[in-house]
């Protein structure tokens, strides 16, 4: 499927940090599965789920592609297609053009791509697949959404990459995601091994952070500010385990395996989580409709003091490392 050369150069092998996170993630998941065999049997049948998840309609139309559309074909780091992120795919190229590729400035285009990925794509737990599929469905995990944003930027000739890390689950999210007993057990067992991410686009000589994962409705539904283009959500509404941030060109092997495993063993759990996400969106939409997005955001930011002091890792001369 991938050539050895591609695997090596585009960084498909998980970096050491990610390997560690994956290792513990699998251990934790395995433990939950083994210690909850009975429940798992129940959850493996969708008929046992309380309510079924129905994928909401796609929020956008995919524009028509034509052969004359320009796209970036450079084989350069952060510009070329990578795993699940085919920036040459006709759907991506067409959409990039609709969003103003090669017409707008880099900054304007990246912002437009950010707004698209943030607002139009809906969170749904499912195994990873290519950006074409994500666009067809209109849904995906945060990693799917990141890939769409990254692909759009790359198609338009703007360097883009992933920023992956292990985050601290915020309460509002653990209520939605961990409301399901199985996910709760898993996230408890996982502790901090929750992989989440943002994207970064290289605009005017600077990497701009883009928190495309949560839609404004979901942020409103969890009482957090609506993160903007260039605004890092780290420190605004959650904290990251120091030393886990990885800035990478591509998603790597292993990440998908975990998702696939959960999907296979406990589809009812996944279904339940997805239904919860829709509830959260509904709640957030109501809040935004009542207050207005701008007003909501201004109000929440006023009340939203940075609750997390920055952990510091400044060298202290009193500590002597002998080796």
């Amino acid at each position, binding site marked *: 499927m991938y050539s050895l050369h591609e695997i090596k150069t585009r960084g498909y092998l998980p970096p050491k940090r990610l390997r560690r996170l994956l290792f513990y993630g699998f251990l934790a998941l395995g433990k939950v599965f083994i210690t909850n065999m009975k429940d798992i049997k129940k959850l493996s049948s969708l008929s046992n789920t309380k309510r079924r998840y129905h994928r909401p309609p796609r929020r956008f139309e995919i524009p028509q592609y034509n052969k004359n559309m320009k796209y970036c074909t450079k084989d350069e780091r952060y510009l070329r297609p990578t795993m699940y992120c085919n920036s040459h795919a006709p759907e991506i190229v067409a959409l990039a053009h609709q969003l103003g590729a090669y017409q707008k400035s880099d900054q304007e285009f990246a912002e437009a791509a950010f707004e698209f990925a943030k607002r139009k794509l809906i969170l749904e737990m499912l195994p990873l697949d290519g950006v074409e599929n994500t666009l067809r469905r209109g849904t995906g995990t945060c990693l799917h959404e990141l890939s769409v944003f990254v692909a759009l930027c790359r198609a338009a000739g703007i360097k883009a990459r992933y920023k992956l890390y292990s985050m601290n*689950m915020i309460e509002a999210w653990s209520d939605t995601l961990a409301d399901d007993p199985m996910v709760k057990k898993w996230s408890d*067992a996982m502790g901090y091994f929750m992989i989440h991410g943002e994207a970064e686009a290289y605009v005017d000589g600077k990497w701009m952070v883009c928190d495309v994962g949560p839609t404004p409705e979901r942020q409103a539904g969890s009482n957090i500010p609506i993160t903007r283009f260039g605004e890092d959500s780290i420190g605004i509404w959650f*904290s990251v385990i*120091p030393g886990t941030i990885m800035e990478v060109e591509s998603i790597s092997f292993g990440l998908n395996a975990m998702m696939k495993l959960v999907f296979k063993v406990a589809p009812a759990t996944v279904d339940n989580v997805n239904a919860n996400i829709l509830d959260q969106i509904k709640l957030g939409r109501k809040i935004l409709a009542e207050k207005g997005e701008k007003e909501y955001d201004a109000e929440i930011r006023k009340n939203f003091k940075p609750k*997390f*002091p920055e*952990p*510091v890792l400044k060298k202290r001369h009193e*500590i002597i490392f002998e*080796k």
Partner: protein
Amino acid sequence: MTDLNSYIAKLDKAIEKYIPSKNTPLYESLYKPKDLFRIPLDDAKKMQLKTIKHSFIHHYNNNQFYHNFCKEHSFSPEDIKTNEDLDKIPLIPDKFFKDYPNGKEFATWLANIYTGDLPKIVIKQKKPTYDDVIDAFNRAGIIVTYSSGTGGRHTFVPRDQRTFLNSEYILAKSFVTMVYPFWEYDSYGYLLMPNPRKNFIYAGKAVEVYFDAVKDVDVAIDRRVTTELISMTMGGAGGIKSKFVRYFAYKKSKKMIDDIIAWLEKHENTDHKITFVGAPYILYAVMEKLKKQGRTFNFGERGGVGTGGGWKIHENKRIPVSDFRKEVQNVLGFKDKYILDIYGMVEGNGWMVHCPEGHYLHVPYSFYKPLVLDDEFKPADYGEWGRFAFLDGAAQSYPGFIVTGDRVRLLKRCPVCDRPGPVLEPEVKRAKGEDVRGCAEEVRKMLSSDLGS
């Protein structure tokens, strides 16, 4: 009967080395008042302002990370003029103490939390484990205690000697005051915790003072319990090694219960005073076994219990504190007034203790300020449920201004007894979405094989 002043004076003599240094606000607010829970409110308010402000200035001036945090909040020592201003001191979420890297960086992270100059700390290993780093700090005189939540993620807090002694002094004095006139040095104790001399689990470590306050103390868990061991038994790791660990823990727990019963028998027909201090579920397991054998004891006024944290008895069973007291009365024959629960946490040095009359958790208020925060992290009124936060004037080696994940209700004064200060409802819960934790919970999980069932 001795009066309270001479009773506490006796305690001070036994635990002299723990008394705060003279000429500090803490000496005035913690050592001088003989009954910490009956200081007239007006006097206590002055002490509280002085002690906490003094502590804030110390951290503001000597801790880079906290200084920056205050700057972000545009808060500086000049902003503190009254006791109410104290509420605006920037609070650190307890989660902060869990966000650490591993290996060498862990040592650096700890050093950056620490307020003031560190002694020289030598890390010998190329890839130090958490336990290696803790040991290195300990060799340099800094005690890194911990407590953990789920996933084997620990909360680490660095304490210098002074801060640690403060914490121990507060614990001993608060408890001994509440059981007045029960305490005497010539008595026998059983520590239901890992041996503090070999361990760094916080609540366990802080009760080291028990060995000085009571002549003869036995220890239930006499081995070193490492962070690695806890991770293995708490689910942070799997594999054959941890299965072995759990199996041996199970074997050891059985013997532990039998040892405690033998100890009770030894003191049964004497005039000795006995106390249990530590994790409630160990004593619960002892009582379950006794009940199965149809046996009871009748220690009457000769028995006392101080429990701490962890009211989960089994994986899915939580026992109400009041039921536990009834059990102790029925099975061991202790008096209700001498069965008190203590609430504290690894990030703080203040201990809340039940009053014997109403079993409300009395908060020391002359050097420590309790707060309850609403969902937006703003101070809530008395009587409201919310998140527990505190300003701890006894923390010298790290800023003790902390928001916890515990859900509490703070009352202006005790509905039952006549002590004037604030109290918390008798039972503390974890806020929604927070880890279950507490040192006793940790020990319980470690020995989690179905004790006594």
